[in-house]
Structure formats: structure tokens, C-alpha cells
């Protein structure tokens, strides 16, 4: 009866508004339908407190809404932090250590449970209980570090009031990035009684326009519209889009070339991953502007070198590797989608300034290695087996051979990052990695990957294991301040100071691609710099 009532009400509403064509928007595009998406990998987690990859963040951007979130927009506008479940942006105390927010009233999870302010505290504690990789962003909350160790007694730095919806967060020191960090999925509220275990196979209830209704890890997952969105949340969150399609079905198709075939044939509507380099030229020739386009992404691709052990504990050797990588070769290997560069910060990130300390010079690289005469010339080059990461690995391995090393290539599949993030893994000498922005603040490229405190036995992000006290102090000092032109200038200087130490051999910044089937209205798709394709913007013609 309830269903019938809803249908009748909807029919009445449509008739009243006098919409000309049912299911069509003003632009003529259709509402409804099922969007089919291919992913090369199942997201690391379909659990907001645990996920760290762009696949997962994109998959949950419209499912789990944090107190603050990122605008559903492209380019710089898409990097703006806007209120999510909170009524407004936080009020920050003068000393920069107290953040006050108020939860919007009347919100409900997709299972009908009301959203409470205390859910936020429970969610942050759940993240620490799970030892999430994201917890490093929140250790500055008073009592968080102790809770991370003991898992007992709660986090005293978070106070909530379910009646008024007020949330107060106390930090141990001022932070220039905490607003950005609150907008990450790690602290997106879940019901307080959500168990502290990985829920990827049975994702928790949603607050956004879509809920995950099916999840078969490593195979597929699916979304339906969140029934509570239309009833409650949409009205309370007017700045967040409703989405056009009724259902989204995501499937793992590990071979990106097959993903291209599926999009071309219309079997799937969108391939999440970039078009593989081997297919870029034919796809762009045939579909550029109609079904295919390159999209900007703020990222840095690089090879890290383990500064903690020979031969890369020697600065001259690390500089030699930088000199040995030819930008033109990198560009070809990535089929023209890589903008070569030798900085840590990518273009588009505040603090970016173009410079190149190590122009390509193979002879100089050989001379530097000869001069350094490292005690250990046998090195292992790590990369994953996803094209073109395997090819760039083979290229760097060959370049290392050319400058005097006995280099061996080791390619791994899906567990790549967990293996190289485990510092006890043998032969961690040099390897490929990339970093995509979590939030538009340069600290995101320094603290997790280049600060000495980020070196951890497992889930290590500082692959180069660089621990320079002077540079650590500078990261801390800059990270505590709000961005300004002066601070951006200091970040540019910090970038250069790190590259003088050459812990990385940066490759550049890669453009991603959007490739959709002929049924999808590509012009309407929003490409967010952090979350990539915004599910709510996909619409059929």
C-alpha cells in the first residue's frame, strides 16, 4: 500500500508540474536506468573507515557523507570543502585547536536509523580500532594516540551532544589541514553500533543518495537509490546532487583492454580506469570529444629509493637515477598521458613551482655511480603488473643496468602496495608508486610519504624511508598553518630541498581519461579532482 501510495503521489506531482516528457530532463537526457561500470580492481575496502584507494573513494563518495565533503564540481571548484552532514563549516578557536560543528537535524541512514552526533565519535573510534591507514590523519585529536594503542576508554578530545547535534573536537596542536581531513571518507558517520571489522562484504547503511545493496568482494557490487534520501536527507542536504540513474552495477574486469572493448560495444557504460596506453591512440582518434576525453588529475608518479640501505643510502647514487630517467621515454611509455616533471608537488597543487634539478644525462649518471662506487650493485626494482606500470618498471630496470647496476625486476599484482608497505619485505631497493591527492593541500604530499614519523613497519607510506630531522620539522611547522601565498612559497622551497636529497625519481603527473559508451551523455559527467567520475552526474541520452 505504501508503494502504491507513493506511485500515486508521484503521478499527481508530475501532472501538477506539467512535465512534458516523463523521465527526461530539460536537456533531453533521460532520468533513471542502470549504469554499468567496469573497474580493474575491487576497491581495497567498501568500508569508509578503511578505504585508501581512489577506486574506493569514488565508489563511496555518494554513499557515505562525512561532516564536511568536497563540492560536486570539476577542477578547482571540486577541491572546495563544503558542509556535508554538518550544518556549516567548523568554527575554529583562536588558538586553532578547537573545532565546533553541528550535525544537521533529521538525517537518517538508509536503514531508517537516525543519524546522531555521537555516531561521529563512535566512527572515529571505530577507525582507530580497525588500525585504519587513515587514522594517521587524526592522531592530533586529544587522546587519539593513547586510544590507538589501548583501544579503551574512548577519545576524550571529541565531545558530542545528541540533543543539540553539537560536536566539539580538541586538537593537541593547531592544524592547517584538519578541515580537509574531516572531508575525507575516514570519518563519514556510521551508526554507533557498527562492528569494528571490515564490512566490505556487507557494507553499512548509507547517508548519501545511493546505498550499496550487493557486494561480492573481488567480483562485483551494486547500488540502489537510498530510500531515506528522497524521504529525508535530500531536503536536508540541498547542495548535494540526487543522481540521475536508479541503479549502478560495478564489475571487476581486470584487463583494461577488455574494458575498452566493453565500452565500445555498449556492454558497459563507463570504464573507471584510464584507457590503457596501447589503446589510447585508436580510442582518441575515434571517440575524442564524443565518448572520450582526457581529464586532469592531481598526482605524482615516481620511483622511490630506499635511503636506509645501500646503494641508495648514497646521495650521488640517487641523483644518478634521477639523471638516468628520460622524460621523453616516460611520455612514450605512458602513451602521451604523462606530463613529465621532477618535482614532488604536481601541477595544480598549491606550492607547485616548475624546476628540474636533474636533466636527462646518461653519461653523467654513469659517472656519478662510478664515482660513488656503491658496495652493493645488485638491486631489485619493484612495480605492479598493471600496464604501463610494468613497462615503466622494465624501463627503469634497463636504465639501472645501463648506469652500472645489476638490476632485477619484480612485478606484483594486487598485493603490491601491502608488500612494499611492509618494511621487513626483503630487497626493498627501488620501486614505482603514485600518489593522488587526498585533499588540495601540499602537506598531503609531504607528511604521509616523506616525514620520518610516517615510517611504519606495516602500511608504511614513506617508501624511501627518509628521515631528515630538519625537513621533518619544516613539514610540521608548515602543516600547522593555514595556506597563504607565503606558505605556498615555503612549500615550493620544501619541494626543492627534498629533491636535493633525491629520495624519489619523479616521473611526472598523469592525466586520467573518461571513456563512456555512446548511451551516456559525456558532457554532463563531472570529473572531480579527488573522486574522479562523480556517479551522480552520469545520465543517459
Amino acid at each position: 500500500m505504501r508503494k502504491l501510495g507513493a506511485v500515486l503521489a508521484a503521478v499527481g506531482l508530475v501532472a501538477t508540474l506539467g512535465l512534458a516528457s516523463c523521465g527526461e530532463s530539460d536537456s533531453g537526457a533521460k532520468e533513471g536506468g542502470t549504469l554499468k561500470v567496469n573497474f580493474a580492481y575491487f576497491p581495497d575496502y567498501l568500508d569508509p573507515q578503511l578505504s585508501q584507494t581512489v577506486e574506493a573513494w569514488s565508489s563511496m563518495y555518494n554513499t557515505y557523507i562525512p561532516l564536511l565533503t568536497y563540492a560536486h564540481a570539476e577542477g578547482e571548484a571540486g577541491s572546495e570543502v563544503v558542509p556535508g552532514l554538518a550544518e556549516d563549516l567548523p568554527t575554529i578557536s583562536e588558538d586553532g585547536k578547537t573545532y565546533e560543528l553541528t550535525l544537521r537535524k533529521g538525517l537518517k541512514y538508509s536503514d531508517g536509523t537516525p543519524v546522531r552526533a555521537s555516531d561521529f565519535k563512535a566512527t572515529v573510534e571505530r577507525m582507530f580500532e580497525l588500525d585504519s591507514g587513515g587514522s594517521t590523519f587524526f592522531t592530533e585529536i586529544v587522546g587519539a594516540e593513547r586510544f590507538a594503542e589501548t583501544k579503551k576508554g574512548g577519545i576524550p578530545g571529541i565531545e558530542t551532544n545528541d540533543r543539540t547535534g553539537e560536536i566539539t573536537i580538541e586538537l593537541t596542536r593547531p592544524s592547517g589541514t584538519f578541515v580537509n581531513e574531516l572531508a575525507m571518507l575516514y570519518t563519514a558517520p556510521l551508526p554507533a553500533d557498527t562492528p569494528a571489522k571490515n564490512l566490505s562484504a556487507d557494507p553499512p547503511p548509507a547517508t548519501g543518495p545511493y546505498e550499496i545493496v550487493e557486494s561480492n568482494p573481488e567480483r562485483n557490487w551494486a547500488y540502489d537509490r537510498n530510500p531515506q534520501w528522497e524521504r529525508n536527507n535530500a531536503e536536508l542536504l540541498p547542495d548535494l546532487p540526487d543522481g540521475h540513474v536508479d541503479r549502478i552495477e560495478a564489475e571487476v574486469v581486470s584487463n583494461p583492454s577488455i574494458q575498452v572493448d566493453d565500452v565500445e560495444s555498449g556492454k558497459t557504460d563507463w570504464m573507471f580506469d584510464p584507457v590503457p596506453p596501447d589503446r589510447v591512440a585508436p580510442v582518441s582518434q575515434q571517440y575524442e570529444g564524443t565518448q572520450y576525453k582526457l581529464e586532469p588529475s592531481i598526482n605524482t608518479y615516481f620511483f622511490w629509493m630506499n635511503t636506509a640501505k645501500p646503494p641508495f643510502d648514497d646521495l650521488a647514487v640517487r641523483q644518478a637515477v634521477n639523471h638516468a630517467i628520460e622524460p621523453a621515454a616516460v611520455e612514450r611509455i605512458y602513451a602521451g598521458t604523462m606530463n613529465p616533471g621532477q618535482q614532488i608537488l604536481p601541477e595544480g597543487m598549491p606550492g607547485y613551482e616548475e624546476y628540474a634539478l636533474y636533466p636527462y644525462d646518461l653519461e653523467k649518471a654513469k659517472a656519478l655511480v662510478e664515482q660513488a662506487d656503491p658496495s652493493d650493485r645488485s638491486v631489485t626494482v619493484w612495480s605492479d603488473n598493471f600496464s604501463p606500470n610494468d613497462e615503466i618498471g622494465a624501463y627503469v630496470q634497463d636504465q639501472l643496468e645501463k648506469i652500472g647496476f645489476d638490476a632485477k625486476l619484480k612485478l606484483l599484482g594486487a598485493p603490491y602496495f601491502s608488500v612494499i608497505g611492509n618494511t621487513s619485505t626483503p630487497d626493498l631497493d627501488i620501486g614505482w608508486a603514485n600518489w593522488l591527492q587526498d585533499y588540495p593541500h601540499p602537506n598531503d604530499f609531504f607528511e604521509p610519504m616523506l616525514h620520518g614519523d610516517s615510517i611504519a613497519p606495516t602500511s608504511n607510506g614513506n617508501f624511501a624511508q627518509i628521515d631528515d630531522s630538519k625537513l621533518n620539522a619544516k613539514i610540521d611547522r608548515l602543516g600547522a598553518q593555514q595556506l597563504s601565498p607565503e606558505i605556498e612559497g615555503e612549500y615550493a622551497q620544501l619541494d626543492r630541498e627534498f629533491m636535493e636529497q633525491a629520495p624519489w625519481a619523479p616521473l611526472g603527473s598523469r592525466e586520467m581519461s573518461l571513456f563512456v559508451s555512446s548511451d551516456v551523455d559525456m558532457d554532463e559527467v563531472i570529473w572531480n579532482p579527488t573522486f574522479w567520475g562523480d556517479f551522480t552526474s552520469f545520465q543517459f541520452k
Partner: protein
Amino acid sequence: MEGRGPWYRAYRRLRSNRLAIAALGLFAAILLFVLAAPLWADLVAESGPNETHTTAKIEVDGESREVVSPDGTPIGPVWLGAGGRFLLGADGRLGRDEMVRLMHGGRTSLTIGLGATLVTTLLALALALLAGYFRGWTDGLISRALDVVWAFPVMLLGIALGTALAISGIQIGPLTISSGSTWLPLLVIGFVLVPYMARPLRGEVLALREREFVEAAVAQGSGPLRVMLGELLPNLLPTAIVLATLNVVNAMMLEAGLSFLGAGVQEPDSSWGSMIADGVEVLATAPLLTILPGTMILLTVLSVNVFGDGLRDAINPRSKVRLEAHTGSYEPERGAA
């Protein structure tokens, strides 16, 4: 023929089988082709199999051409236009010489095919002799162990072992094999194929064990080792040789399959199987990159298979052993006259 031994009679029969001899000739030609790889690489191509030429330029009929264009498209076959360099073009965006990789890849494929067969044969002979001679619980233990391996689809087991060992390699006491080594797929393939050879050989040993010459040897005081090596093994060899020949084909096909799926030979090394995997990505634009290694596998498998059939007919004209091609397993023909 009077007075000649069984090996000589087998040789005469094989020599009269023209198809088998032609197959042997083809295999010898393939062998020469892959053995010449270092010579070709040094003297003609002036490039190793893993050497990248991403931004290099070459002179083709007096015209300067890029090995890889800025959009990542590799140069196609230039035949003799560059003096033999990049005869078959480049292998992809890394600009490696396809001809050199094809020759070196063949060395890898054949090394694994032959090496794995040696491992399989030695293990299968040892297990079959122990199980068939001692019978009882020894036979039960070995047979059940073989059943466990046999219970897994061979490709699945190969992928599981190949992938698991790809991270840390093998470390058993002083024996260390690094993860990228060709020894890994060789040993994995050699191991997973053991039941397919050990089981028919065990059946043969069980039958031989009841023959009078074994009883005579035991009566004369020969110990188990002497009976197994001195009496049973020589009588087992003809069957083992035939099975081993046919096993080369299975091992090569399995290597190609594992490398195609990324669990066999690892980058930057090449094998014909891994080259097919690389070529499939550009099948529409550069079909030769797939067709060439595929053709080499086809010719090698065909030559070894035809020769193996001829060898089987020569050694055992009554064809007591038949190949169960559809399952990839071997079984002695029951009730054959």
C-alpha cells in the same frame, strides 16, 4: 634383423617413418634458431633482448625513423631495411627488438619445456619404482600424494604455485631461487606434471614386478635398490622415453599458459607465452606480435608431438601406450594385445 637388439629395431622403424623424421628436422631447425639468439643479438641486432630503445632512432633504407613514436606506437617490421636491426619491428612502447626477443623467448620456452620434463621424468621414475616395487603402505602413501596433486586442475595448480612463489621465490635450506628466476616456472611445471607420468609408470612397475626375471634376481640375493635400478628401470625406460617426449609438449603448453596469465616467466624476460600475452593488447594494430610467438609454439608443439608419436610407434609397435589428448593424461591401454 636377426640378432639385433630391441633398440636397433626401434631405430630402424623410426628411420622409416618419414613424417617423424621430418618433424625431428623441424624441431632441430627451431632449436638452431633459438640457439643462434646471442649471435643474432650481438652481431646483427646490436641489442640484448631486454634492452629498451624507447627514444632511439634508426636508419631504415636511408630514412631516419623513430623506434617508438611520441604517442607510444612502436615501429613495425622493417625486414632488412636497417641491416637486420628491428627485422620484425619493436615489441611495444619500450622499443625492444622483437626478433631478438622471439629468439631469446624460444630459448626460455624450450629450456622450461625440456627442463621441466627432466624434472617430471626423474621424479616420476623414482616414485613409480618405489610404489610399484614395495607396494603396500609405500604404494598407498605415494599414490594418495599423487592423487592430491592430480585432484587440482593442472593450470590452476600452476597459477597458484607460480603466483605464490612470485613474491619471495623458494628458500629451502641452502637452496635459494629468486622470484624472477626461470627455474621457478621450470620447477613448478615439472612438479605439477609428475602424476601424469608417475601413475602409468607405476602400473608398468607393478606388472614387471611379477615377471620371472625379477623373481630370479631376488632369488639370487639382489637387494631392492639393485632390483629397481638393475632390473626394473631398464625395462621401464622405453615407456618413460615416449611419455617424456609427449610431456615436453604439455610442459611447453603449460609454460605458455602460465606466462600468458602472468604466473610463468616474468618481465623483462620473454618466453613465447609471455610474448603472446603482451601482443594480445595490440592485436588489432600489431597482429604480428601475437602471431609470431604463437606460430613458433604451434610449430614446436607439432614437431615434438609428431616425433613423439613416431618414437612411440618405433619403440612399441603394438602401441601399448596411448595419449589421452583431451585430458592431458597418459594411461596404459587396457587389454591391448
